[in-house]
Protein backbone atom coordinates (compact mmCIF):
# COMPACT_ATOMS: atom_id res chain seq x y z
CA UNK A 1 0.00 0.00 0.00
CA UNK A 2 1.22 3.46 -0.89
CA UNK A 3 1.56 5.90 1.99
CA UNK A 4 0.09 9.39 1.81
CA UNK A 5 3.52 10.82 1.18
CA UNK A 6 4.12 8.30 -1.62
CA UNK A 7 0.78 9.17 -3.21
CA UNK A 8 1.90 12.79 -3.28
CA UNK A 9 5.47 12.06 -4.40
CA UNK A 10 4.32 9.88 -7.28
CA UNK A 11 1.11 11.79 -8.08
CA UNK A 12 2.20 12.64 -11.64
CA UNK A 13 2.78 8.94 -12.24
CA UNK A 14 -0.38 7.78 -10.51
CA UNK A 15 -2.51 10.09 -12.62
CA UNK A 16 -1.26 8.36 -15.78
CA UNK A 17 -3.64 5.59 -16.79
CA UNK A 18 -0.62 3.46 -17.83
CA UNK A 19 0.79 3.70 -14.31
CA UNK A 20 -1.80 4.34 -11.60
CA UNK A 21 -1.35 3.16 -8.03
CA UNK A 22 -0.81 -0.42 -9.20
CA UNK A 23 1.92 0.56 -11.62
CA UNK A 24 3.64 2.69 -9.03
CA UNK A 25 3.61 -0.31 -6.70
CA UNK A 26 5.24 -2.36 -9.49
CA UNK A 27 8.00 0.26 -9.71
CA UNK A 28 8.46 0.20 -5.94
CA UNK A 29 8.68 -3.60 -6.08
CA UNK A 30 11.06 -3.45 -9.08
CA UNK A 31 14.76 -4.24 -9.00
CA UNK A 32 17.08 -2.76 -11.62
CA UNK A 33 20.83 -3.28 -11.82
CA UNK A 34 22.95 -0.55 -13.40
CA UNK A 35 26.37 -1.77 -14.54
CA UNK A 36 28.63 1.27 -14.91
CA UNK A 37 27.91 4.31 -12.72
CA UNK A 38 29.19 6.78 -15.28
CA UNK A 39 27.85 8.66 -18.30
CA UNK A 40 24.95 6.35 -19.11
CA UNK A 41 24.51 5.05 -15.57
CA UNK A 42 24.16 8.54 -14.08
CA UNK A 43 20.88 9.60 -15.75
CA UNK A 44 19.52 6.07 -15.45
CA UNK A 45 20.17 6.05 -11.70
CA UNK A 46 18.77 9.56 -11.16
CA UNK A 47 15.55 8.92 -13.08
CA UNK A 48 14.94 5.44 -11.69
CA UNK A 49 15.49 6.82 -8.19
CA UNK A 50 13.06 9.67 -8.77
CA UNK A 51 10.55 7.25 -10.31
CA UNK A 52 10.59 5.15 -7.17
CA UNK A 53 12.17 1.97 -8.50
CA UNK A 54 12.46 0.25 -5.14
CA UNK A 55 15.81 -1.51 -5.50
CA UNK A 56 18.67 -0.14 -7.56
CA UNK A 57 21.93 -2.04 -7.85
CA UNK A 58 25.09 -0.19 -8.88
CA UNK A 59 28.19 -2.04 -10.12
CA UNK A 60 31.40 -0.11 -10.80
CA UNK A 61 34.93 -0.41 -9.38
CA UNK A 62 36.00 3.09 -10.38
CA UNK A 63 36.47 6.27 -8.35
CA UNK A 64 35.14 9.67 -9.40
CA UNK A 65 37.66 11.62 -11.49
CA UNK A 66 37.63 15.30 -12.44
CA UNK A 67 37.33 14.35 -16.14
CA UNK A 68 34.07 12.47 -15.40
CA UNK A 69 32.12 15.53 -14.30
CA UNK A 70 31.52 16.93 -17.80
CA UNK A 71 28.87 14.22 -18.32
CA UNK A 72 28.46 11.94 -15.28
CA UNK A 73 25.85 14.17 -13.68
CA UNK A 74 25.28 12.02 -10.59
CA UNK A 75 28.82 12.85 -9.36
CA UNK A 76 29.70 16.28 -7.98
CA UNK A 77 33.01 18.11 -7.62
CA UNK A 78 33.19 17.24 -3.94
CA UNK A 79 32.97 13.54 -4.86
CA UNK A 80 36.32 13.40 -6.67
CA UNK A 81 38.27 10.43 -5.38
CA UNK A 82 35.19 8.76 -3.88
CA UNK A 83 34.04 5.36 -5.21
CA UNK A 84 31.45 6.00 -7.94
CA UNK A 85 29.02 3.53 -6.43
CA UNK A 86 29.12 5.40 -3.10
CA UNK A 87 28.80 8.83 -4.72
CA UNK A 88 25.83 7.59 -6.78
CA UNK A 89 24.23 5.84 -3.80
CA UNK A 90 24.37 9.07 -1.77
CA UNK A 91 22.52 11.01 -4.51
CA UNK A 92 19.91 8.29 -4.99
CA UNK A 93 19.20 8.19 -1.26
CA UNK A 94 19.00 11.98 -1.14
CA UNK A 95 16.50 12.03 -4.01
CA UNK A 96 14.26 9.29 -2.72
CA UNK A 97 14.35 7.45 0.63
CA UNK A 98 11.98 4.82 -0.81
CA UNK A 99 14.88 3.36 -2.79
CA UNK A 100 17.17 0.64 -1.45
CA UNK A 101 20.60 0.87 -3.09
CA UNK A 102 22.89 -2.15 -3.33
CA UNK A 103 26.47 -1.39 -4.34
CA UNK A 104 29.05 -3.65 -5.96
CA UNK A 105 32.43 -1.92 -6.00
CA UNK A 106 33.88 -4.30 -8.55
CA UNK A 107 34.17 -4.79 -12.30
CA UNK A 108 31.83 -7.41 -13.67
CA UNK A 109 33.69 -10.54 -14.78
CA UNK A 110 32.77 -13.99 -16.03
CA UNK A 111 33.28 -15.19 -12.47
CA UNK A 112 30.97 -12.73 -10.65
CA UNK A 113 28.36 -11.41 -13.11
CA UNK A 114 25.84 -14.27 -12.93
CA UNK A 115 25.60 -13.87 -9.16
CA UNK A 116 25.27 -10.08 -9.39
CA UNK A 117 22.46 -10.02 -11.98
CA UNK A 118 20.52 -12.94 -10.50
CA UNK A 119 18.25 -10.98 -8.16
CA UNK A 120 17.29 -8.19 -10.58
CA UNK A 121 14.32 -7.82 -12.92
CA UNK A 122 16.15 -5.74 -15.50
CA UNK A 123 19.76 -4.81 -16.23
CA UNK A 124 21.21 -1.62 -17.70
CA UNK A 125 24.48 -1.77 -19.63
CA UNK A 126 26.20 1.53 -18.92
CA UNK A 127 29.73 0.25 -19.47
CA UNK A 128 32.43 1.70 -21.65
CA UNK A 129 34.21 -1.26 -23.19
CA UNK A 130 33.38 -4.20 -25.44
CA UNK A 131 34.61 -6.85 -23.01
CA UNK A 132 31.95 -5.73 -20.52
CA UNK A 133 29.26 -5.19 -23.16
CA UNK A 134 29.67 -8.72 -24.55
CA UNK A 135 29.90 -10.21 -21.06
CA UNK A 136 26.67 -8.48 -19.99
CA UNK A 137 24.94 -9.73 -23.15
CA UNK A 138 26.12 -13.28 -22.62
CA UNK A 139 25.25 -13.32 -18.92
CA UNK A 140 21.79 -11.85 -19.53
CA UNK A 141 21.05 -14.18 -22.46
CA UNK A 142 22.17 -17.27 -20.53
CA UNK A 143 20.14 -16.18 -17.47
CA UNK A 144 17.12 -15.07 -19.54
CA UNK A 145 17.44 -11.60 -18.01
CA UNK A 146 16.04 -8.63 -19.99
CA UNK A 147 18.45 -5.75 -20.41
CA UNK A 148 19.11 -2.48 -22.17
CA UNK A 149 22.29 -2.04 -24.21
CA UNK A 150 23.63 1.47 -24.69
CA UNK A 151 26.63 2.72 -26.59
CA UNK A 152 27.92 6.23 -27.22
CA UNK A 153 30.81 7.87 -29.05
CA UNK A 154 31.48 11.51 -29.85
CA UNK A 155 28.07 12.79 -31.07
CA UNK A 156 26.31 9.49 -31.79
CA UNK A 157 24.68 6.89 -29.62
CA UNK A 158 22.61 3.76 -29.95
CA UNK A 159 20.47 1.63 -27.72
CA UNK A 160 18.50 -1.60 -27.96
CA UNK A 161 16.50 -3.60 -25.46
CA UNK A 162 17.17 -7.31 -25.37
CA UNK A 163 14.55 -9.83 -24.30
CA UNK A 164 16.52 -13.07 -24.34
CA UNK A 165 14.93 -15.81 -26.40
CA UNK A 166 12.37 -13.39 -27.83
CA UNK A 167 14.28 -10.57 -29.48
CA UNK A 168 17.72 -10.29 -31.10
CA UNK A 169 20.66 -10.01 -28.72
CA UNK A 170 23.83 -7.94 -29.06
CA UNK A 171 25.65 -10.91 -30.60
CA UNK A 172 22.90 -11.27 -33.23
CA UNK A 173 24.10 -7.86 -34.43
CA UNK A 174 27.78 -8.25 -33.61
CA UNK A 175 28.78 -11.91 -33.26
CA UNK A 176 32.26 -11.13 -31.90
CA UNK A 177 33.88 -8.13 -30.22
CA UNK A 178 36.19 -6.04 -32.38
CA UNK A 179 39.92 -6.52 -31.81
CA UNK A 180 41.23 -4.37 -29.01
CA UNK A 181 41.96 -0.78 -29.97
CA UNK A 182 40.17 -1.24 -33.33
CA UNK A 183 37.29 1.05 -32.31
CA UNK A 184 38.04 4.28 -30.44
CA UNK A 185 36.72 4.78 -26.91
CA UNK A 186 35.24 7.97 -25.47
CA UNK A 187 38.44 8.65 -23.57
CA UNK A 188 40.36 8.51 -26.84
CA UNK A 189 37.86 10.12 -29.22
CA UNK A 190 35.74 12.30 -26.93
CA UNK A 191 32.03 12.48 -26.22
CA UNK A 192 29.69 15.45 -25.99
CA UNK A 193 28.61 15.56 -22.36
CA UNK A 194 24.87 15.62 -22.95
CA UNK A 195 24.89 12.52 -25.20
CA UNK A 196 24.82 9.90 -22.41
CA UNK A 197 21.98 11.94 -20.89
CA UNK A 198 19.87 11.31 -24.01
CA UNK A 199 20.73 7.62 -24.40
CA UNK A 200 20.66 6.91 -20.65
CA UNK A 201 17.24 8.54 -20.31
CA UNK A 202 15.94 6.23 -23.03
CA UNK A 203 17.44 3.22 -21.23
CA UNK A 204 15.73 4.34 -18.00
CA UNK A 205 12.44 4.68 -19.91
CA UNK A 206 12.79 1.11 -21.12
CA UNK A 207 13.42 -0.17 -17.58
CA UNK A 208 10.31 1.65 -16.33
CA UNK A 209 8.17 0.38 -19.22
CA UNK A 210 9.44 -3.14 -18.60
CA UNK A 211 8.55 -2.97 -14.89
CA UNK A 212 5.14 -1.51 -15.69
CA UNK A 213 4.51 -4.00 -18.50
CA UNK A 214 3.32 -1.12 -20.68
CA UNK A 215 4.15 0.16 -24.14
CA UNK A 216 6.32 -1.23 -26.88
CA UNK A 217 9.89 -1.97 -25.84
CA UNK A 218 12.88 -1.14 -28.03
CA UNK A 219 13.33 -4.83 -28.77
CA UNK A 220 13.90 -6.08 -32.30
CA UNK A 221 15.02 -2.64 -33.39
CA UNK A 222 18.06 -0.55 -32.63
CA UNK A 223 17.60 3.17 -32.03
CA UNK A 224 20.38 5.40 -33.31
CA UNK A 225 20.79 9.04 -32.35
CA UNK A 226 22.98 11.63 -34.04
CA UNK A 227 23.29 14.80 -31.97
CA UNK A 228 24.95 16.83 -34.73
CA UNK A 229 22.21 16.10 -37.27
CA UNK A 230 19.67 15.96 -34.42
CA UNK A 231 18.12 12.83 -35.86
CA UNK A 232 16.79 9.62 -34.39
CA UNK A 233 16.41 6.50 -36.55
CA UNK A 234 15.39 3.02 -35.63
CA UNK A 235 16.30 0.00 -37.70
CA UNK A 236 14.48 -3.28 -37.36
CA UNK A 237 16.69 -6.23 -36.56
CA UNK A 238 15.77 -9.90 -36.77
CA UNK A 239 17.13 -12.66 -34.59
CA UNK A 240 20.16 -14.25 -36.19
CA UNK A 241 19.84 -18.02 -36.60
CA UNK A 242 23.66 -18.21 -36.56
CA UNK A 243 24.02 -16.09 -33.40
CA UNK A 244 26.80 -17.71 -31.33
CA UNK A 245 24.78 -17.45 -28.11
CA UNK A 246 21.05 -17.29 -28.91
CA UNK A 247 21.04 -18.90 -32.37
CA UNK A 248 20.00 -22.40 -33.36
CA UNK A 249 23.39 -23.97 -32.63
CA UNK A 250 25.03 -21.82 -29.95
CA UNK A 251 28.79 -22.12 -29.53
CA UNK A 252 28.81 -20.04 -26.33
CA UNK A 253 27.28 -22.01 -23.52
CA UNK A 254 29.19 -20.62 -20.57
CA UNK A 255 30.58 -17.22 -19.62
CA UNK A 256 34.11 -16.21 -20.41
CA UNK A 257 35.92 -12.89 -20.35
CA UNK A 258 36.61 -11.44 -23.79
CA UNK A 259 40.17 -10.50 -22.91
CA UNK A 260 41.02 -9.66 -26.51
CA UNK A 261 38.42 -6.91 -26.43
CA UNK A 262 39.97 -5.10 -23.50
CA UNK A 263 41.80 -1.98 -24.47
CA UNK A 264 45.03 -0.85 -22.93
CA UNK A 265 43.29 1.80 -20.86
CA UNK A 266 40.66 -0.69 -19.65
CA UNK A 267 43.43 -2.91 -18.38
CA UNK A 268 45.02 0.02 -16.64
CA UNK A 269 41.69 0.94 -15.05
CA UNK A 270 41.07 -2.58 -13.82
Amino acid at each position, binding site marked *: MLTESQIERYSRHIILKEVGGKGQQKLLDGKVLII*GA*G*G*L*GAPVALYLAAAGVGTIGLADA*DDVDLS*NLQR*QVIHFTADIGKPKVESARDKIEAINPDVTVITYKEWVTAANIAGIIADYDFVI*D*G*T*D*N*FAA*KFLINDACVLAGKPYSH*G*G*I*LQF*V*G*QTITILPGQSPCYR*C*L*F*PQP*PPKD*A*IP*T*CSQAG*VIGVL*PGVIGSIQATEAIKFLLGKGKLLAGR*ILMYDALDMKF*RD*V*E*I*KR*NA*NCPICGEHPTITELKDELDALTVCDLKES
Partner: protein
Amino acid sequence: MNISINGKETIISENSDRTVDSLLEELDVSQRLYVTVELNGEILERPAYETTPVKEGDVIEFLYFMGGGR
Protein backbone atom coordinates in the same frame (compact mmCIF):
# COMPACT_ATOMS: atom_id res chain seq x y z
CA MET B 1 21.43 2.46 -59.76
CA ASN B 2 19.40 3.39 -56.71
CA ILE B 3 19.87 1.83 -53.30
CA SER B 4 19.01 2.92 -49.78
CA ILE B 5 21.89 3.32 -47.36
CA ASN B 6 21.11 4.03 -43.70
CA GLY B 7 17.72 5.37 -44.72
CA LYS B 8 19.05 7.66 -47.47
CA GLU B 9 18.26 7.09 -51.13
CA THR B 10 21.65 6.85 -52.80
CA ILE B 11 22.65 6.70 -56.45
CA ILE B 12 25.72 4.60 -57.26
CA SER B 13 27.23 3.77 -60.63
CA GLU B 14 26.06 0.69 -62.53
CA ASN B 15 28.48 -2.14 -61.78
CA SER B 16 27.41 -5.74 -62.05
CA ASP B 17 30.55 -6.91 -60.21
CA ARG B 18 29.78 -4.91 -57.10
CA THR B 19 29.52 -6.89 -53.90
CA VAL B 20 28.70 -5.75 -50.37
CA ASP B 21 32.42 -5.92 -49.61
CA SER B 22 33.42 -3.76 -52.58
CA LEU B 23 30.61 -1.30 -51.75
CA LEU B 24 32.08 -0.85 -48.27
CA GLU B 25 35.42 -0.03 -49.86
CA GLU B 26 33.88 2.20 -52.54
CA LEU B 27 31.99 4.25 -49.95
CA ASP B 28 34.95 4.23 -47.55
CA VAL B 29 32.61 3.11 -44.78
CA SER B 30 34.07 3.61 -41.33
CA GLN B 31 34.82 0.50 -39.25
CA ARG B 32 34.90 -1.31 -42.63
CA LEU B 33 36.44 -4.46 -41.20
CA TYR B 34 33.97 -4.64 -38.30
CA VAL B 35 30.76 -3.02 -39.48
CA THR B 36 27.65 -5.20 -39.50
CA VAL B 37 25.65 -5.03 -42.72
CA GLU B 38 21.92 -5.56 -42.79
CA LEU B 39 20.71 -6.20 -46.34
CA ASN B 40 16.97 -6.01 -46.97
CA GLY B 41 16.21 -6.71 -43.31
CA GLU B 42 18.59 -9.65 -42.88
CA ILE B 43 21.93 -9.43 -41.11
CA LEU B 44 24.64 -10.72 -43.46
CA GLU B 45 27.27 -13.11 -42.22
CA ARG B 46 30.67 -11.52 -42.72
CA PRO B 47 31.96 -14.24 -45.12
CA ALA B 48 28.99 -13.42 -47.37
CA TYR B 49 30.06 -9.80 -47.87
CA GLU B 50 32.42 -10.82 -50.68
CA THR B 51 29.91 -13.00 -52.48
CA THR B 52 26.70 -11.01 -52.09
CA PRO B 53 25.96 -8.72 -55.04
CA VAL B 54 24.43 -5.28 -54.55
CA LYS B 55 21.27 -4.93 -56.59
CA GLU B 56 18.94 -2.13 -57.66
CA GLY B 57 16.57 -1.23 -54.82
CA ASP B 58 18.59 -2.88 -52.06
CA VAL B 59 18.02 -1.49 -48.58
CA ILE B 60 21.31 -1.49 -46.70
CA GLU B 61 22.00 -0.54 -43.11
CA PHE B 62 25.46 -0.23 -41.64
CA LEU B 63 25.49 -0.99 -37.92
CA TYR B 64 28.52 0.26 -36.08
CA PHE B 65 30.26 -0.75 -32.92
CA MET B 66 29.81 1.87 -30.23
CA GLY B 67 31.70 0.98 -27.09
CA GLY B 68 31.40 4.10 -24.95
CA GLY B 69 29.18 4.55 -21.95
CA ARG B 70 31.07 6.04 -19.07
